[in-house]
C-alpha cells in the first residue's frame, strides 16, 4: 500500500509526471480514433456506392466508357 502511494507520489513530482503521461496518451488516442473513424467511414461509403452501382446498373459501368 505504501509503495503504491509512493509510486503515485513520484517523489513529490506526481503533479507533473502524471499529467505529462496522461495528456500524451489522451491526445494520441484521440488522433488515432479520429483517423480510424475517418478511414472506416470512407470505406463504408465506397462499399455502399459500389454495391448500389453494381445492383442498380451493372451495364452503366460498361456503357460509361464510350
Amino acid at each position: 500500500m505504501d509503495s503504491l502511494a509512493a509510486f503515485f507520489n513520484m517523489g513529490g513530482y506526481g503533479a507533473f509526471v502524471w499529467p505529462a503521461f496522461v495528456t500524451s496518451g489522451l491526445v494520441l488516442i484521440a488522433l488515432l480514433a479520429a483517423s480510424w473513424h475517418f478511414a472506416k467511414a470512407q470505406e463504408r461509403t465506397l462499399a455502399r456506392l459500389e454495391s448500389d452501382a453494381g445492383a442498380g446498373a451493372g451495364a452503366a459501368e460498361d456503357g460509361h466508357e464510350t
Partner: protein
Amino acid sequence: MDAAGKMFLKHANPQRFLGLSAVVLPWAAGATVVLVTAGVYLALFASPPDYQQGETVRIMYVHVPAAWMAMFCYSIMAAASAAMLTWKHPLAAMVAKCTAPIGASFTFLALLTGSLWGKPMWDAWWVWDARLTSVLVLLFLYLGYIALHNAFDDPGRGSRAASVLALVGFVNVPIIKFSVDWWNTLHQPSSMVTAEGPAIHASMLAPLLVMAGAYTAYYVWVLLLRVRGEIIAVKIRALQMRQAGG
C-alpha cells in the same frame, strides 16, 4: 529512369498503395501496441530516478520522442511537399497533408510535457529562449499549413500554397536542432549527440529508445489510416460524379 525510381513510382500509385497499406497496417498497429506497452513499463516501473532530477526524469520518455517526431514529421511533410510540387504526384500530396495533423499533435505534446518538466526543474513553465521559441514557431507552421490547405475552394490551389509554406518553414528545423548549440538557452543541449556518445545511462536510454520506436510506429499507423481515407474519398467523389453524370 533507374530501376529504383520505377519501383517507387509503381508502388506510389494510389491503387497499389491501398493494397500495400492493407498489409502493413496490422503490423504497424501491432508494433505500436507492443512498443507502447514495453516503453511505458520501462519508463514508469523499470527505470531508475535521475541523480539530479529524481522522478521528473520520467517526463523525458514522453517529451523527447514527441519532440523528435515533431521535427521528423515536418521533414517528411517538407520532402513530400517538394515531391508534390516537382512531380505533381497525388500520393506525395496526400502524405504531406495527412502528416500535418500528426506532426502538430506531437509538437503540441512536446511543448506541453516540456512545460510540465520545466516548472519543477527550471522553476518556469515557459521561457522565451531559442529552443522553446523555435518549437512554438514549428507548431504555428503546422497550423498555418493546415489552415492554408482549407483556405481555398480549389483543393489543388490550397495544396500548392500549403506546400510552399511547408518548404519555406523547413528552415526552422535546423534552427530547432542547433539552437541549443548556437545560442545560450535555458534548455540543455542534446544528450544523444555528444563527442563522448549519449550522455544517458543505459537504464534510461532503453525506455527512451523504445518509446521513440513506439511513437514512430504510431506515426506510420495513423498516416496509413489517413492516406487510405483520402484515397478512398477521391474514389468516392469520382463515383458520385459519374453517377450524377450518368
